[in-house]
């Protein structure tokens, strides 16, 4: 560990605000990108699954009518 104490680590030799701002925004953006990509795929799969299920119900109903 380069820093003497945890407070020193947070202070970053007086540049704490800028260093933690940079790292904070980076990790925020990466989390949004990864999470968003996973969410997008999950959302689409659920939507498609519902569509397929509805189509099958309609088909079943039509077969009963005949």
């Amino acid at each position, binding site marked *: 560990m380069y820093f003497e104490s945890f407070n020193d680590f947070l202070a970053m030799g007086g540049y704490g605000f800028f*260093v933690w701002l940079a790292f904070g925004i980076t990790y925020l953006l*990466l989390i949004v990108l990864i999470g968003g990509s996973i969410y997008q795929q999950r959302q689409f799969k659920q939507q498609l699954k519902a569509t397929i299920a509805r189509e099958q119900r309609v088909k079943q109903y039509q077969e009963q009518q005949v």
Partner: protein
Amino acid sequence: MFKWLDPYAKSETLYHFCGKLLPFLMVTALVLLLLGNIWGIAFTPADYQQGDSYRIIHIHVPAAILSMGAYAAMASAAFVALVWQIKVAHWAVLAIAPIGAVYTAIALITGMAWGKPMWGAWWVWDARLTSQLILLFLYFGVMALDGAFSDRKVGAKVSSLLALVGVINLPIIHFSVEWWNTLHQGASITKFRPAIDPSMLWPLLISILAFAVLLMALTCLRLRTAILENEQHRPWVRKLVGG
């Protein structure tokens, strides 16, 4: 010669191939990212001139290098999409564009947070900063053009064409610090003899590798979504999702 590549142009094969790679790539990327960043931020000595503010380098440089790497990958896919008319190549272009845009934004924002304490300004209209901002707009342009035409095929072609033309910006970004008199410092690690001490270089190289692997992982993930969306009427997708 490219016969071994042929099956991967088929969306179903590519979907399963990406699915196999994805967990491995994602775990490797996150482990390397945490390792490189924690090493860089807590276990390396401070810079003799810039003090601890230089630690921003451990995200700024990887994001900047890979924002250009992502563009090169996207443009290669666009080339394949235009020349050989392979649909999955165009979906790859659209899968990579948002990742590249986020990397570019990270490079710009961390650069601003580094510029303020060192240069005294959040932003200057310097050659390096301006050309990097243009890279961000190129990514936005590629994403926007795809949906801007009522005929999807025209949109796909135009956005791939923009991705290809935009390659001209890559050497401009790289050499901007040599061609123009700029505030931004010159290259340190892409020189034959890196102008950086090994104790600082190693964590930086690990972080660069982490951003590269993360780019691959996210491309796999987003390409899978794109394949499902575009092939949703195919029997294999119906069976996979519905069954």
